């Protein structure tokens, strides 16, 4: 269960109707997927489970997911025209509904394609517009946005975790939750680090200079106010400053 920590999780988000979990949460799932992919996909396969699958048309869940994938924020009045937007902006959308039982009633699985790249993400909308990401590219994760979260992809090898966390420690950045997953020894691995407070850009730059690190994806700001949500493709690749 998500742990709510801010009055703005309850009084907010400012959003287009009609459902916070099925519309606003879905926009954020779309935005998170776009951020993780790092650019706008050319094609997406979306699978909807549980209540998402049963009620998506009435709630505009499909419109909301597509709107998010196109970088629109939760309060964008363009969301209701998401299919037209997708056509205009070159995003091909395939939507499927699955009867398979899942842990959370509002679950979406998104596979994104661009050129020869593809990535996938599974996320749930847990109420009030809050979301949890539970899978990225086959890695089991738990990104719940109660703290700023950064994803580090890298080739599994000894010492990588220590190198990243040492830099954080040197700058007195406290890790609140950390998770490491890999497919097999020596293959692609994913380190998920949630911190108390956003990692400043100069620290991110230092981490990026570790040569064996792959893509770094910062998801810190997705749950903030709509006007702070990423609008252009790769904005989430950078760690942004706190809004204050």
């Amino acid at each position, binding site marked *: 269960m998500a742990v*709510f*920590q801010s009055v703005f999780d309850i*009084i907010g*988000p400012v959003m287009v*109707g009609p459902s916070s979990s099925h519309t606003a949460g879905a926009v954020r799932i779309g935005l998170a997927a776009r951020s993780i992919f790092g650019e706008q996909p050319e094609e997406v396969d979306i699978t909807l489970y549980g209540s998402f699958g049963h*009620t998506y048309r009435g709630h505009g869940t499909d419109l909301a997911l597509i709107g998010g994938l196109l970088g629109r924020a939760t309060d964008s*009045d363009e969301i209701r025209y998401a299919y037209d937007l997708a056509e205009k902006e070159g995003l091909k959308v395939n939507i499927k509904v699955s009867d398979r039982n899942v842990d959370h*009633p509002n679950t979406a699985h998104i596979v994104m394609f661009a050129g020869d790249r593809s990535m996938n993400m599974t996320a749930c909308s847990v109420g009030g517009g809050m979301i949890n990401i539970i899978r990225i590219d086959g890695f089991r994760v738990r990104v719940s946005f109660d703290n700023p979260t950064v994803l580090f992809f890298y080739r599994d090898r000894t010492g990588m975790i220590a190198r990243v966390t040492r830099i954080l420690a040197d700058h007195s950045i406290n890790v609140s939750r950390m998770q490491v997953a890999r497919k097999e020894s020596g293959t692609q691995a994913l380190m998920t680090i949630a911190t108390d407070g956003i990692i400043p850009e100069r620290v991110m730059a230092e981490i990026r200079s570790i040569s064996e690190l792959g893509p770094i994806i910062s998801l810190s700001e997705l749950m903030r*106010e709509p006007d702070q949500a990423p609008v252009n493709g790769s904005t989430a690749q950078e760690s942004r400053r*706190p809004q204050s």
Partner: protein
Amino acid sequence: MKLYPKNFATAIHNCNLSGISLSRYFLDIEIVLNETPEAVILKKMEKNLSVMEKAAAKGIAGVTSFSGLTGGDAKRLAAFRTKGSPFGDSLYLEGMIKSLAVNEVNAAMGVICATPTAGSSGVLPGVLLTIRDRLHLSRRAQINFLITAGGSGILIANQASISGAEGGCQAEVGSASAMTAAALVEAAGGTPSQSGHALAIALKNLLGLSCDPVASLVEVPCIKRNAIGVVNAIAAAEMALAGIESRIPVDEVIQAMGSIGRMMPMALRETALGGLAQTPTACRMTSMLQEEGHIPWPFPAARSDER
């Protein structure tokens, strides 16, 4: 890692210990926990308040939902009030108009502020935008109202749920009404403990409420239920201000709501597979909406009919 207080009893205890209001208490936590200066929080909340005002005004002028199924009821009730209700004017009537207005805007895919969800977004503004004139609340006092409601909502969300898919409508309109009642008590000069009783009373009144919307749209019965959330919140606040206490402590009521939600069958948790959504009239409405292209085939209700 610093965390939010576990329950309402802790919040009341800490308020009494330092002699502060719930809004001051929740604001202080917000500042520390989210490392945000007070001025930024107040400004952000002010923005949310203005979204509520705009939505209410838009809805009273009259809107039609995205599906065409609902709309115009806020306008209808406002005209009724202007003409003069046979029962006389009341706070309740004005609150109902504003809550219908905001929730009709939500169904029209207009911009609203979720409180705590979009489906229940009419309850809090319905109360706040009505009582603020009667209580002569300053702008800051209105923002305090939102902070107390928000903090109370967190305590509900973390101990139970605010999602219709998880806990039915009791988790949405029930939570909205309960957190609004707590804020209303403070705005009217009540104590933190009275806010707790108001929250408990309001939530108890809506326990067990199912989420069974027609054609899975956030319209029938959601919109009118927001008006009931208003009436219930004001009634609970008045009882608490009179010194009436909830016999069951507030946190136990919240946990009971969570437990009822977990026992609720899936058909009554935002799937449109049971209850009102499966009445003959609802099924006819659903087919009509499908034929008009508002909701496409295959719709789960229709699918289960075939089998």
